[in-house]
């Protein structure tokens, strides 16, 4: 069963000509329709995250300022990021959608969650909007789960590093953040030597990929470098920052994945859930509408056992050598950090 929230009423968050646009969500919903789930699709009621739920990961002053900025009509928050009059309410609902999906999964103890929302969230910092993101949707959900005693794995396969999520959980030993991303690229963070704060060493895993990298290299990096860390961490929940801008057709970056690669990534992520009903995907980027539709369909289809055909997984791109250098850099950083802390 697919449990979704979002997918509607996002039209008010729009800036003409901006690539983070309402048509993205329409493409995502088509990708879900393509799976023809029938009764296996459950849409949960919209929910706006409360002030206290947001305040777990955002500064109060930031929430006040963002709300006021929107109510005054909005505008540009930085060179990339906009907000409109409606954005505050929509961002609250985007953050709330993750909470609602997680709650439904907890009640049912089965199914796969999908949070089909915009604006996206993984660049949003505690005190700052950034990179098209206003509130950090996945962080709000992860913080809710850790408050219930859960250990949360966040896998972020968006082509950009989720600097906001990493920073929010930098010193939190109950959240393991694993990111694959093109590097160097916006936002500039995500180096392999970023391994978590002194109170949470080895709970951040960054796997940078060179331009042109294909799915095989990404899987190799995840399997060889991230999987042992995840096994050791023993997550009780798996949340995915599912951006689809690493697709080869995406205009925002230069990785070379296909929709079939996203199916494999989804399967990899879900394999770490200790039992059914513990996996939720959160929409982040993805700006080529056809690739977005196909990739949503492929990744959710893989988790739901759909037999729908996807593009073949890709291989042969550059970056195999970076898998080892990344692992070496991580290990060196961990050694230095351990020496410092003792």
């Amino acid at each position, binding site marked *: 069963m697919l449990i979704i929230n979002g997918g509607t009423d996002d039209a008010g968050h729009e800036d003409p000509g901006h690539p983070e646009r309402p048509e993205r969500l329409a493409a995502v919903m088509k990708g879900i329709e393509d799976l023809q789930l029938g009764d296996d699709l459950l849409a949960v009621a919209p929910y706006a995250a409360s002030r206290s739920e947001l305040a777990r990961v955002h500064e109060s*002053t930031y929430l006040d300022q963002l709300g006021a*900025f929107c109510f005054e009509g909005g505008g540009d928050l*930085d060179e990339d990021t906009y907000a409109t009059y409606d954005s505050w309410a929509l961002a609250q609902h985007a953050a709330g959608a993750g909470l609602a999906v997680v709650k439904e999964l907890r009640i049912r103890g089965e199914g796969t969650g999908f949070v089909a929302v915009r604006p996206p969230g993984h660049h949003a910092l505690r005190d700052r909007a950034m*990179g098209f993101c206003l509130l950090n949707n996945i962080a709000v959900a992860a913080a809710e789960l850790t408050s219930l005693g859960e250990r949360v794995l966040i896998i972020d396969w968006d082509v950009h590093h989720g600097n906001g999520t990493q920073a929010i959980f930098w010193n939190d030993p109950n959240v393991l953040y694993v990111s694959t991303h093109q590097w160097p690229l*916006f936002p*500039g*963070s995500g180096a392999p030597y970023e391994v978590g704060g002194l109170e949470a060493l080895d709970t951040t895993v960054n796997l940078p990929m060179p331009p042109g990298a294909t799915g095989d290299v990404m899987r190799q990096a995840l399997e060889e470098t991230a999987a042992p860390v995840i096994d050791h961490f023993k997550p009780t929940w798996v949340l995915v920052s599912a951006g689809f801008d690493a697709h080869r057709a995406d205009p925002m970056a230069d990785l070379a994945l296909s929709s079939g690669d996203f199916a494999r990534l989804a399967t990899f992520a879900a394999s770490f859930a200790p039992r059914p009903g513990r996996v939720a995907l959160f929409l982040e980027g993805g700006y080529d509408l056809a690739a977005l539709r196909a990739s949503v369909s492929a990744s959710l289809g893989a988790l739901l056992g759909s037999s729908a055909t996807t593009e073949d997984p890709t291989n042969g791109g550059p970056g195999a050598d970076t898998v080892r250098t990344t692992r070496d850099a991580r290990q060196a950083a961990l050694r230095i950090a351990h020496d410092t802390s003792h």
Partner: protein
Amino acid sequence: MKPIHTIAVGFDGSEDAKTAVRWALTLATHCDAQVVVAHAVGLLERFDAKNVAVELEESLLRLCDESGLEHSRAQLEIEDGDACSVMLRMADPPISADLLVVGTRGQGAHAGLLLGSTSLELAEHSTIPLVIVPRASTTEQSQMA
């Protein structure tokens, strides 16, 4: 106090950023320093696939001439990232800047808000001295030169 060998200044092409660059170039003529003019490539700039390098380079050479700094002592550094993280990286090797310089409004700050203000964010996180050059300082810097 550590001598200033390398000054890193943020440059997005805006008038406010030009004011900051002029100030940094002028300071360099007084303390025999090199200037790294850093430009951050954000999401939209990459999406638009605008090649701003030539434009920024020309602009920088003009500003060097105005400030009387030899061209060889100023270099343009274009990096993917948000303005704040790119500036913070200037303090690390290989640039290892001794001083960061930014304008007040360019480089990401909009609408007179605290939200997204690169200058304030830098002030909070920089491990090396930071100068925020106010818009009104144009006349002061020309006197200094």
